[in-house]
Structure formats: structure tokens, C-alpha cells
């Protein structure tokens, strides 16, 4: 009886093995890169891969919110993203849905089971550092988060995706200035992981190297141990 019970249970257990973890290299998207005009001002933001860690939402959404910190420790980061319409003289685009997501200070994403320098973390049931907002009449969305860490193979970044009238208009990424990355990773909070030794600067990053000027955010120290990030995303609305 005991043996048959165990056998039965083992069979059940085997049939319910864990969902395979999807680990993919962060590759450049095959989608057409709109290119960056040398004069800069108003061209569609570069199309980038959404990476292996995107997640999304709606009315029952657990990530439609301004504060996306979810208790994660890190240097506070105040994010402002302006959505500008290349089809309307670069004017602000209201009511665009903007999804953002980034890793925590140790380089781990929520929503996935992922590997990092602290070993494997199963974050499938968590939604930290993910948010979505709809742009206001000034074309702006704001989020409160923490300064992202880094993980092997990538420089510091935030993913962003923009929908207009339920149509996906752009998937891009936001870069941080090299010197500020270095300064933040030098602080006590980030010292355990330290400087990014795998990709030391934006120009060496596989995503940003050919499009950095359009993807580099303006990041300034707003007060002690806090940063403001402002970035424009251009969408053909």
C-alpha cells in the first residue's frame, strides 16, 4: 500500500514538473531600425528587442501604477518619459500606454525565474520594477522606482513599450550615462555586485552601440542618493 502510494505520487509529481525557464540571449531585434537622423530632433525612437523579460497589463492589472518599487531596495529613481508624435510635429501624444520594466539592483527581473550573481531566483509571482501608465495631455508618464542594477551581457537599461489605440507603436530601451552608472555602482547599496564588468560602457552594449544618442536618457542627481531620469520617446502616432 505504502509503495503503491509513493509510486502514484511520484508519477503525479513527474507529470507536474516545473515550467521550463526561458533563458534567451538578449539579441538585437530583427525589426527594421528606423535609423537616427543626424540632425536628431524628431525621428522615431530606435526599435529594440523587448528582451526576455517583458510583462503586461489591463483593468485587472497588477502593474498599472506609478510606484513600481514593490519594496525593492536601491537608490530612488524618478522616471519621466515624454511621448512625442513624429506624425504631428513632435507634439506630445496623450493617452498612449507606456509599459516599462527593468531589473532590480542585483540584476534580477520579476515575473521570471532568472539566474544572476546571487544564484537562481524564482520571481515568477512578483511584479517589482514593472509598471504601465497612460500619458497625460502633456504626453508624460511618471514612475517611481530604483536605479536598476546590471546582469551579465548587458549595460544598465530600462525597457519601454508604447501602444496607441491598442496598436503597438514602439518597443525601445533607455540607456543611462556611463559616469552615473559607475557612480551608483560605487555606492554601498550596489557594492555587493559592484561595477559592470561584463559590458563596461554603453558604446560596447549590443543594443545601444548603434543607437545610443537616441536612447540615452538625461539623468541628474536630484538630492542625496536620488536620481531623476527624463527621456523622450518618439512614436509615429
Amino acid at each position, binding site marked *: 500500500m505504502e509503495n503503491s502510494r509513493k509510486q*502514484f*505520487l511520484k508519477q503525479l*509529481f513527474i507529470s507536474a514538473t516545473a515550467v521550463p525557464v526561458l533563458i534567451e540571449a538578449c539579441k538585437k531585434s530583427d525589426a527594421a531600425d528606423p535609423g537616427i537622423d543626424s540632425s536628431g530632433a524628431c525621428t522615431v525612437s530606435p526599435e529594440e528587442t523587448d528582451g526576455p523579460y*517583458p510583462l503586461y497589463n*489591463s483593468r485587472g492589472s*497588477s502593474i498599472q501604477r506609478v510606484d513600481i518599487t514593490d519594496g525593492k531596495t536601491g537608490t530612488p529613481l524618478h522616471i519621466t518619459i515624454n511621448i512625442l508624435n513624429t506624425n504631428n510635429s513632435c507634439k506630445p501624444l496623450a493617452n498612449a500606454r507606456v509599459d516599462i520594466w527593468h531589473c532590480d539592483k542585483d540584476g534580477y527581473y520579476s515575473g521570471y525565474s532568472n539566474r544572476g550573481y546571487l544564484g537562481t531566483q524564482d520571481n515568477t509571482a512578483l511584479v517589482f520594477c514593472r509598471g504601465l501608465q497612460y500619458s497625460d495631455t502633456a504626453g508624460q508618464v511618471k514612475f517611481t522606482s530604483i536605479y536598476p542594477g546590471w546582469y551579465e551581457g548587458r549595460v544598465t537599461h530600462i525597457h519601454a513599450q508604447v501602444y496607441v489605440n491598442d496598436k503597438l507603436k514602439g518597443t525601445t530601451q533607455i540607456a543611462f550615462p556611463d559616469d552615473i552608472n559607475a557612480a551608483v555602482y560605487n555606492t554601498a547599496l550596489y557594492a555587493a555586485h559592484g561595477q559592470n564588468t561584463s559590458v563596461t560602457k554603453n558604446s560596447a552594449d549590443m543594443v545601444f552601440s548603434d543607437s545610443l544618442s537616441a536612447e540615452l536618457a538625461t539623468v541628474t542627481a536630484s538630492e542625496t542618493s536620488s536620481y531623476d531620469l527624463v527621456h523622450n520617446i518618439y512614436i509615429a502616432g
Partner: protein
Amino acid sequence: MIKLAIRQVIDASSTGTFAKNVFRDSYAEFLLQSQAYNPNEAFSTFAEMVEHQPKANSLHYKTGFAVGLYVQSLANLVPGAWDMLGNIQLSFERHQFKIITSCIHDRQLHKVAVLYYTAPLLLHKIIGDYLLLGFNDTTDTFTLKLDDDLSICHYSEES
């Protein structure tokens, strides 16, 4: 000691506020999120997207987070998961959302599942199709019928 996984299948014919909300919002979100893996609407079904672009598998959880607040509103009680006498409703610790089938042109083909994972339960006996279960902090027991939507997802011997 065991943990159970209970599957709730939700489709166009599902009734009740929770199931209807999950169906409606997960389909809307699927239509949004699938665009990243279905340029020019080359494919109609979720299965076709996954076949041609394995990254479309991420639509399971991308879509699932759109219903996170609905799941939260269940207050950790698994919908419809009662013991044989209808006295005890199973509670869950975490959940997982899965797309079973979907089609961008026909919402009637949208079919999803919410998997609920329970806290540890004591398995005393298996009696036919029934599990005799109990909790750690009481000697009370209850019975639960095995069916196609119930699986034991964790097992360990008592120390």
C-alpha cells in the same frame, strides 16, 4: 506532505464575475501583447505564433499580469475548490496563468487556465478517487476528489 495544483479553465462560456473579468481582460491583453510576435498579423492563433516565434511563449505571463488584481481579489481562495462536503474551500499561495488557445480574429477561441498552488497539506490516505487530507495545526481532516483539474505538485515524506 503534499501541495496541490488546481486548474481553473476559463473560456467564452464561463460564468461568474471573476471568470468573465479574466476572460475579457486576458483576451484584450493578448490582442495587445501578441502584436510584438505577430507583425502584420501573419498568424491568427497563439499556437501558430509560438510555432514561428518561440518567444511568443512569454505571452502566458505577459497576458497573465493583466489579471493579477482579479486573482488578488479572490483572497487566496481557489474558486470552486471545495472538499467533498462543501465545508472547506482550498486556499492558494501562488498562481500561474496559462493560455490554452487563442485567436486574434475570434474571441470565442480564447481559452485560458489559472493554476492555483496550495500551501502544504498532510496526505493521510488515498481512498479510491479521494485524498484524505489534513492541516499541520489540527487533527481535523477532509476529503477531496481527484479529477483532471487536480494534481499533486509537491510531495515530501514527513520527517
